Structures are given as C-alpha cells and as structure tokens.
C-alpha cells in the first residue's frame, strides 16, 4: 500500500462505480452496501495516511509520478503535503458518511450510487493531483456527476439549480484552462508539473502574473463561492438531496480556497501579494458580513445553512491572505472545521426534511419536546457553527482573526463582530424551530434514528476534540503552510526590493 496509496484512494471508488453498475437494478440494498464497501478502504487508508504522514517536512509525500502523454509533458502525478492532507482526510470521511446519509434514496438507486462514487473519486483526485492538467481533469470530471445528482434527485427546482451550478463552474474552469495553458507555455521546457511551475515563479513578468492570477481567481472564487459569484450556491444547496448538500458544502467549496493556496500562492506570489488585500481580505470580510446578513433573512432552513457557508468561507479567505502563520494555519483549519460542522448541519436539516417534508423555519416550533435527541445534536452543531469556545470552529476563527489583527485591525474588528450576527441567526433559528409551542402537526415525529446518529457521531467527535485539542490537525498542516507563507511573502519581498533598487 505505501507508495500507491493515493492512487488507490482515487480509483477504488471508480472501480466501485463500475461494480455498482453491474449489479441488478432492483437489488437496492445490495447496491447501497456495495457502494458503502467501496468507501471503507479509502477511509482506512486515510487513517493510515494520518498516522504515517511526516509532519516535519514540506516535501510532497506518498508521491506517484508516471508519464501520461509524454509528447505534451503531461503526467499522472499525485502526492500530498500539509495543504492537501486535511482535505484528503475530509473527503474520505464525508464520502463514507454520505453513503449512509443517502440510504433513503429510492429513485434509480444504481445510477445514484455509481455517480456518487465517481464524484468521490474526482474530489479525491483534485486534492491529490500535482500535475495541473490532471488537476483540471478531475476538477471538470466532478461537474458531470454533480449535475446529475442535483438534477435527477434534487428538489422541485432541481433542473434550474443543476444547470446553474454547471454553467457557473464551467465559466470559471474555462478561464482556468486558458491560464493553465499560458503558464504551461511561458517557459521552456513546457510543463504542467505544479511544483516545477511554482519554482519558476520568479521568472513570470508582473503583467502576466496579474492576468493569470485573476483568471485563476475567478475560477476558484466561483467555487468558494465569493461574492458576487455566490448566487449558484443557495440554489444548488436547497435543491440538492441531503448527502449532496453535505458534499457540496463540506468538500466542493474548499476546492476554491485550496486551489488558491495550491496554485495562485506558490506560482504567482507577486500578484498574490498585490491582490491579497482587496480580493481576499476585503472580499472575505464582505463575504462574512454579507453571508451572515443573508442567512438572517432566510425562512428556509437549508438556505440559511447555505448562506452561513458563504459567511464561514469568508474567514478562510481572510485568514489565508493575512500572510501570517496564525492566519494561514487558521484558514486551512477553518476549511477542515467548516467541512465537519456544515456537514453536520446539512445532515440535521436532512433529518427534519425527511420527516416533515418541508424546511420552513416558521413551520415548526417546540421540536425540543418532540425530538429531544435530535435537538441535542442540532444544538451541538449550531454552537459549533457559532464559534462557541470549546468547539472546533472557535479555534480556527480565533486564529484567523489573530492573524488579521496585526496588519488589518479595522477589518478584523468587522469580521469579529460578524460572529454576533452568526449567533443571531443561529439562535433565532434555534428558537423558532426547537423552542416555543409545539406545532400540532408534528407531535408524533419520530426522533433521530440509529442510522442518522451513525452519520453524525464521527463528525461530532471531531468537532469536540478539535475544539479542545487542535494539535492533530495543526501539526499536519503547519509546516507546509508556514513554508508557503514564507515563499509568497519572501518572493514578493525580493521582487519589491529588485524594483526599488532600480529606482534612484
């Protein structure tokens, strides 16, 4: 297993999809079981990765490098470092959980689980790929299953939501394609190797860096989603089936910020320094506040969570652009924490939707008395999302704000104050749904069942443990991130020094 572990993690789900397609159409339980079985080995491997990951180096680990199309210098090149390892773990965990969250799927089960496994593989591929071409292929492959999963198994406006998601992401990715080709052709020998491209960063002219940066940024910003490219997200989230919302919010959004860290930062450091303030810090702050305000206005439970994602991803943008160790570590930790917390939230929305078949916040009331265990779980997730001390998101948000304080005190104050807004919409929703007078219609709703608890337990444990003791994740990421920080800040410094030395 050691050397090809990432390849196995990527392609086992593909194999699973093929196996699922070969099963008889009406054997629903067999199909679900098979799909689940194919997400277990990647999960075990991710635990193995977690244990064997060398936390003292910034080098790529578990690398596999095979020429794919030699004439164009395209490689199959996968590996992980501190930037991607947490995302690989998150993907493996959420894929496993979401199979069980999808247990209630009845329509065309075979197609659903096959597509889901393909999606799983593509996500894993995005985080492992170190060849830009390969990265792009996985990035795009993700779109197809997502389109069908939202479009076929989604809610009433699913067709609209699915194509909107598809079109938005594709606009971003085609710009990324042009930028990728421009980087490829910029220097001899032409290469898609991300590490090689990053090592050439000082040779790119400033104008080129700016244009390439913006083209890549738009692609990633759509995915994050950063204002004003966020409008696909509420639609997609609301219409998608529960498990797909979990994947969307838990994994897909992180690809945006991951892409910026993996590609924009090391390859285009000068432009990164140049644009960091306006396009990451200021826009991130705006995301935080805007997302929170929008969330407050929602009456649809799921839409509320969707807007809260926009708000929370703002912290990631903010943190990674502070160019401080606290900020960037906090940002990646926030990516992981948001992945677990928001996954819980969407799972919990799914629980109530399965029972009541609607998500109107005002249509419930007093659920605490009817579904006490469910309410307990929701409280945990809500408090985690609010950033309550002792739960995971608190640590990452504090780190981000600490990182920001040094250079951007004003915006840090704004971002920190937005926590009040978050608490506001969360608690208000809590009050309307779970407290107060019970709605007559829902007096006999069954409480959360064992399968649903099973999907929540691992996430709950992670949220609590990381809230008290974030070292396991911080240790994984800090080495690489501090190095990245130095590279970006350092290279930009060198460039600035060179520019100023020319002046008299």
């Amino acid at each position: 297993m050691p050397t090809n572990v990432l390849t196995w993690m990527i392609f086992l789900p593909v194999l699973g999809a093929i196996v699922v397609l070969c099963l008889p159409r009406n054997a629903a339980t067999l199909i679900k079981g098979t799909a689940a079985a194919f997400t277990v080995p990647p999960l075990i491997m991710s635990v193995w990765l977690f244990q064997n990951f060398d936390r003292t180096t910034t080098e790529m680990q578990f690398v596999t490098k095979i020429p794919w199309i030699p004439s164009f210098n395209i490689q199959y090149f996968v590996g992980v470092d501190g930037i991607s390892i947490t995302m690989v773990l998150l993907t493996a965990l959420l894929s496993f959980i979401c199979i069980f969250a999808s247990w209630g799927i009845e329509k065309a089960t075979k197609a659903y689980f096959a597509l889901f496994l393909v999606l799983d593989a593509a996500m894993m591929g995005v985080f492992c790929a170190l060849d830009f071409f390969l990265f792009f292929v996985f990035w795009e492959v993700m779109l197809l299953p997502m389109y069908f999963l939202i479009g076929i198994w989604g809610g009433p406006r699913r067709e609209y939501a699915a194509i909107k998601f598809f079109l938005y992401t594709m606009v971003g990715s085609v710009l990324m394609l042009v930028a990728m080709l421009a980087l490829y052709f910029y220097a001899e020998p032409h290469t898609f190797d991300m590490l090689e491209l990053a090592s050439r960063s000082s040779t790119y002219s400033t104008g080129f860096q700016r244009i390439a940066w913006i083209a890549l940024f738009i692609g990633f910003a759509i995915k994050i989603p950063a204002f004003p490219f966020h409008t696909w997200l509420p639609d997609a989230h609301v219409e998608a089936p529960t498990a797909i919302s979990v994947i969307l919010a838990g994994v897909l959004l992180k690809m945006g910020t991951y892409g910026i860290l993996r590609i924009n930062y090391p390859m285009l450091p000068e432009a990164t320094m140049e644009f960091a303030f306006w396009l990451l810090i200021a826009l991130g702050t705006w995301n935080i506040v805007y997302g929170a305000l929008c969330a407050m206005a929602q009456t649809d439970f799921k839409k509320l969570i969707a807007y809260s994602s926009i708000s929370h991803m703002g912290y990631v943008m903010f943190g990674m652009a502070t160019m401080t160790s606290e900020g960037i570590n906090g940002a990646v930790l926030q990516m992981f924490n948001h992945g677990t917390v928001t996954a819980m939230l969407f799972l919990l929305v799914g629980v109530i939707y399965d029972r009541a078949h609607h998500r109107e916040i005002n249509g419930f009331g007093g659920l605490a008395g009817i579904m006490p265990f469910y309410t307990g779980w929701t409280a945990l997730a809500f408090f985690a999302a609010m950033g309550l001390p002792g739960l995971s998101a608190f640590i990452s948000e504090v780190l981000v704000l600490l990182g920001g304080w040094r250079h951007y005190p004003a915006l840090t104050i704004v971002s920190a104050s937005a926590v009040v807004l978050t608490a506001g919409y969360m608690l208000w929703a809590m009050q309307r749904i779970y407290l107060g007078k019970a709605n007559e219609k829902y007096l006999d709703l069954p409480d959360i069942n064992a399968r649903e608890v099973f999907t929540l337990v691992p996430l709950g444990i992670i949220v609590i443990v990381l809230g008290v003791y974030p070292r396991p994740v911080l240790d994984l990421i800090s080495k690489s991130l501090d190095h990245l920080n130095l590279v970006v800040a350092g290279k930009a410094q060198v460039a600035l020094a060179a520019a100023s030395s020319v002046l008299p």
Partner: protein
Amino acid sequence: MEPSTLGNVASLAYSLPEIVLGAAVVLLFLLDLVVTRKETLGDIALLALALVVVLSARLLWGDSAALFHGSVVLDGFALFFKLLLALAAFAAVWMSLGSREIQRNETGEYWAVLLASTLGLLYMASATSLLMAYLALEFVSLTSYVLSGFMRNSRRASEASLKYLIYGGVASGTMIYGMSWVYGLAGSLDFRAIHAALQSGEAAALPLYVGLLLTLAGLGYKVAAFPFHMWAPDIYQGAPIPVTAFLAVGSKAAGFALMIRFFFTALAQPGGAGVYELVGGVDWSQLILVLSMVTMTFGNLAAITQQGNVKRLLAYSSIAHAGYMLMGFAVLNDDGLRAMLFYLTVYYLMNLGAFVVVMLVANSTGREDLAGYRGLAWRGGAVPAVAMAIFLFSLTGLPPLAGFVGKFYLFAAVVEKELYLLAVVGVLNSVVSLVYYARIVRTMFLEQPTGGEGVVAVDWHNGVLLGLLTIGTLVLGVAWGPLIEFAGRSTSFLAY
C-alpha cells in the same frame, strides 16, 4: 526534397483506393438492375469501403508521390484524410443499413451515389491543383444534392435538396470566379506554381486578397463556416439522418483538407520549427481568425434558440465546431494543424455518435423533435440516453471525454501563439454550447416521460456502431497519445 511526379499509368498503382471505389460505383449501378433485395447493394458498398480503408492504410507505409502529373498528391496528410473520409462513408453506409428512412425507399442507386460522393471526397483531400480541387468539390456537391433529396416523397427533403443546390451553385460559382483571379495573378493552377509565383512577388496583394475571399466562399461553404453556413440547418434537417451524418462529418473534413492544403502550400511556406510564413503579402490568417470567432459565436448563439428539431440543433452545433477547428487554422503552425486533424477525428466519433442516437430515436418513434427525447433515460433501456449524454458532453468539451482533448489541443495551439482574445472567445463559447447540449441531456434525464413517447430499442446492427463510437469517445479521452502522434506525423505536405 523534390517530389517524384508520376505519369498517368505509373500513378495507378498508388490510386488503388480510388480505383476500388470507382469500380464499386459502376458495379452497384449495374447490380441495381438485377438485384431485387436492395440491402445487398448496401452490403457490397460496405465491403468496398472496408477495402478502401485497408488499401489506404497500406499506403501509409509507402512512399509519397505526386500523381497524375502533379494534379493530385499522395502524402501523409492526404492519407490521414482518406482514412477518415472512408471511415465516415463506412459509418454512413452502416447507418443507412439500419435506418428506417432509407429502407422505406427501396432504391439501389443510393449506395452508388454515396460511394461516388466518397470518391469525390478522397480527391478533395489529395488535390494539388485548382482544377482538380474544383472538379472534386463539384463532384461531391452534385452527389450530395442527390443524397439529401433522396427521400423523394418527403417535401422537406425535396426542399432541402433544392436549397442545397441553389446555395451550392452560388458558392461554387463564386469560388471558381475567385480561382480565376488567382490563376490570372499566378499564371498557374498548380498549388506549387502558385506558391512560386507569389513568392517572387509577381502578384499584387489587393487582387490576390479579392481572389482568396471569393475562393473562400466555396471552401467555407463545404465546412459550413459563417457566412457561408446558411444551407446547413435546412439540409441537416431535411436530409435522411445517415446522409446528414455523412455531410456533417465527411463533407466538412474534406472541405478542411482542401482548405488547409491550398492555404498552407500555395499561400504559405514552412519557416522552420513547425511555423509557417505567409507569402504573397496577404495576411489571410487574420481573416481566418476573425472568421473562426464569428463562426463559433454565431453557431452557438443560434443553436441556443433551437428548441425544436434536434438535427437542426446539431447543424448549428456543427457550424460552431467549424469555428473551433478554424482556430487551429489561424495559428499557422504544425501544432495548430495537428490539433485540427486530431479534432476532426474526435469530431467524427462524437458527432456521428450523436446522429446514431438521433437515428435510433427516429427509427423507434419517428420523431426528431426535442420533445421526443423526453425522459429517454427512463423509458426502458437507458443505453441511447447515456450514449447521447457522453457524445453531447464530449461535444461540449468536458473531460474525461475525447472532445475535451480535442479542444485542449486547439486552445493550446492558440495560447502558444499568444492569441489570448481568440482563446477566451473560444472557451467562453464552450460554456455557451453547454446551454444547448445540456438542454438535450436535461430532456433525456431530468424530465420524466409522459407516457406516449414509446420505447427506443437498440438493435444489434446499430448497437455495434453506437458501442464502437462510445468506446472511442471514452478511450480517446484518457489515452490519446497514439492518435495525436499520428495526427502530428500527418501534418507534413509532400510539396516541400
């Protein structure tokens, strides 16, 4: 390298594919008089085309030569297209054998005319003089008029055929007028002689430009590039589906072959390192660049408005694809040519595949409108719907499908030349195309059948073709190394 120019008799040994094809045409006309079961003729046509493919492939390992005193040429480039065109005809005959539309009209001459058209296409791919080019092109046009109007009882087909004839007549008239300008300026019909004359600076730039523009009308008409595309939607919609597929793939490919050879050998010369230089003082690459952007944008935007007939939609899509391929033309280098050849091959697979599904639906339900595809995935077997989705997403250019790789190489060639505007227009067009391709996918997968649509059955005959095209589209999306190498080797013209 001075190519060996062979005389008429010596050339015959290198013309076996064309000879076989010609003989088959005559044979089919004769057999039509005695054979009562007309499908037998189709089988014979299929065999003949298979033989043509084999004979063309055998020539790949042979020498290059200029044949018939230099009016046609046998080189890697010509052979690449001969293989592609023969395969296109093969697929068209295969489709015809499984098509209800064709079977309903029990006529024997159909097969002979189809093969005759293929013969013209092969000569378009290898012509090296304006005279030969014009004859081949006109031969293809005439046979195409007959093919598209083949369903004599259909008013739509008759209308299509007549429109095709009128547009075609105007286009070829314009072209031959343009050719006469070029001839007047260069004093020769031979591509190499034209090149030599232009290089020596004998020709004035402005009249040459006029001559080229006029010539382009005929070529643009064959590849369905804006503004010579007007015939395509009506003809695609009116012609029987196998003929539409044949025109979309074969006619377009041959048009590109002739266009590339004329422009790259008569009006440009290799400048080393795989880059071509213009001769004659006419910057036609700028012209092509604009043509490319306008063609793809027009094709895609027009396709978005098409809500009814799927064949008509595919016609606009084929216009857009002509625009994409012209990108490889505009960059004036081997990488661009290679990308074009590669794209044509990929286009063959995915576009033919889409037409096979259209035919399957038409065979079972008699419908070609979008509503006939409603819930196709949920009406029994999902095979046609899944295959169609693969072809459509490949046409959009999404990995891991062949269409993505094709577009990737085209865009790579454009970015390499630093034509960023063209690249951005091109990629945004891909997004636009997603709108209408996804509309078909949505109709098939996201909408539920209302009941009356009927089941779309896949018989083994069409299933085999569909399977091969699907596998090709999938495999070339991940393992395209050999094909891109073959395409790369095929970009060399004999003339130099």
